[in-house]
Structure formats: C-alpha cells, structure tokens
C-alpha cells in the first residue's frame, strides 16, 4: 500500500468531520494497523477535522478544509489544513492543568497528541496545517518518538 495518496477538499461542515473520520478509518485498515490503532488514528483525525471546521473555518461555507491521506514507506500521514485565523501551537492551554480540568473544551489537540506518534502544527497565515503521523509497526525506520 506504500505510496498511496488520497487528497480531498472538504466543506466546513459537520458532515465533513464524519467523512474524514470514515476515510481515515478505511485508510488505516488498509495500511495494516490493528483495531486499537485504527480507533486512535480515526479519533485523532476526527479531532483535527473538528478543529479545522469549527475553530479554524468557523463553519464558513466560503472556507474549505484540505484533507490528505498518505501511506509512505513506514507511516500513515494525515495532513489537514484550514483557512481560519491560525492556531499558534505555542498558545494551546494544557487541559490537564487544575484550572482547565473542568473546562468544557480544549482537549482536542491533547487527544491528537496522545493518539499519534508525531504531530506537527504549522501556521499558514492565514490558516493552520496539522500533520498527523502514525508509524507502521515493524517497518524499518520505525520511529516512535513523539514530537511537540
């Protein structure tokens, strides 16, 4: 499956969140991940797409979400972009801090980082790109070190 790539442009809607999640689930299954890893990847993709649709594009129909699934030699890579104000990765509150623990929101990026091997967030001016990487177990060059 190495080398496979799917690129989609999604509307800023809740349906897009469900579509992205379903696509990631199928792609991860095809890439050979086990059931638990597929669930983690799917949830990370769901959370990242929610951020793009809700917090980035704010459901603006004029703004689109870029969604790319790639299978490289040793990893599954998901890249999600929005056209919103931009998310500064250095200004994301820690949801585990006592003062944030009972807040209703603010756990999406935390869960994404918990479920993926690497997460890269880049401001696009305007917009945000988030790249989610999950290494395929047993493939040479496998690197489980998580990034910030």
């Amino acid at each position, binding site marked *: 499956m190495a080398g496979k790539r799917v690129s989609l442009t999604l509307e800023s809607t*809740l349906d897009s*969140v469900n579509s992205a999640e379903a696509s990631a689930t199928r792609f991860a299954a095809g890439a050979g991940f086990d059931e638990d890893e597929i*669930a983690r990847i799917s*949830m990370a993709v*769901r*959370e990242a797409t*929610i951020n793009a649709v*809700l917090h980035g594009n704010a459901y603006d129909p004029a703004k689109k979400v870029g969604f790319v699934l790639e299978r490289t030699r040793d990893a599954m890579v998901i890249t999600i972009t929005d056209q919103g104000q931009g998310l500064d990765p250095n200004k994301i509150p820690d*949801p*585990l801090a006592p003062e944030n*623990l*009972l*807040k*209703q*929101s603010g*756990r*999406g990026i*935390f*869960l994404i980082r*918990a479920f993926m091997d690497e997460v890269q967030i880049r401001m696009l001016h305007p917009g945000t790109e988030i790249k989610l990487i999950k290494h395929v177990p047993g493939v040479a060059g496998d690197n489980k070190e998580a990034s910030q």
Partner: protein
Amino acid sequence: MSMKANTRQVDGIAIVDLSGRITLGEGSVILRDTVRDLVGKGNKKILLNLGEVNYIDSSGIGELVSAFTSVRNQGGELKLLNLTKKVHDLLQITKLYTVFDVKDDETAAIKSFK
C-alpha cells in the same frame, strides 16, 4: 449509530440510559438537553449509564464535564455508570476519571447518592 437517551426514575434517582456516540453535533446536544431538562424539573441526583456508549469525542467529554458542573452548581450530584473501555481510557487520559464518581453496579450506584 446516533445517540439515544432514555430516562427512568429509581428511588428518587434519575437514571439516563445512553447509547450510541456522544460526539459533536447530535449526540452532545441530546446529552445537554436531557440533563438540562432533568435539572429544570428539579432532579438533583442523576446517574448517566454509559454502558452502551461505544464512542465519545472531545466534544462529548466536554458535555459530560458541563453536565457534571451544572448539576453540582445546582447543589446536586451527577455520577457515571458502566463505562466502556474506550470511554474509561479517555477519562483516564484526560484526568477526568478521578473527577467523576464512576460506578460499575447500578444498585450500588443508587445507594451511593446522599
């Protein structure tokens, strides 16, 4: 699978049997409206049975937290019953497992309310 919520009363406790997915959109809204309706009708002891909830996202977690704080702010108690492994793991990761009073037996859960 969309979320469903059925409420029953046992010994003065409002037990809400939830099933499906608690996610951004319909699932979270149903949970919010159900708890709001119960609190509005004077229910201060609420037990959320999550035994048939197979999926929850950060929005759903947020709704559980919001329900917990809104009931507590009214002087009531909201507890969780029968967590599936996925929901249990998520509450552990987010450090909310110790915030909520989590039960795995309905009879014991009912007796635990003050």
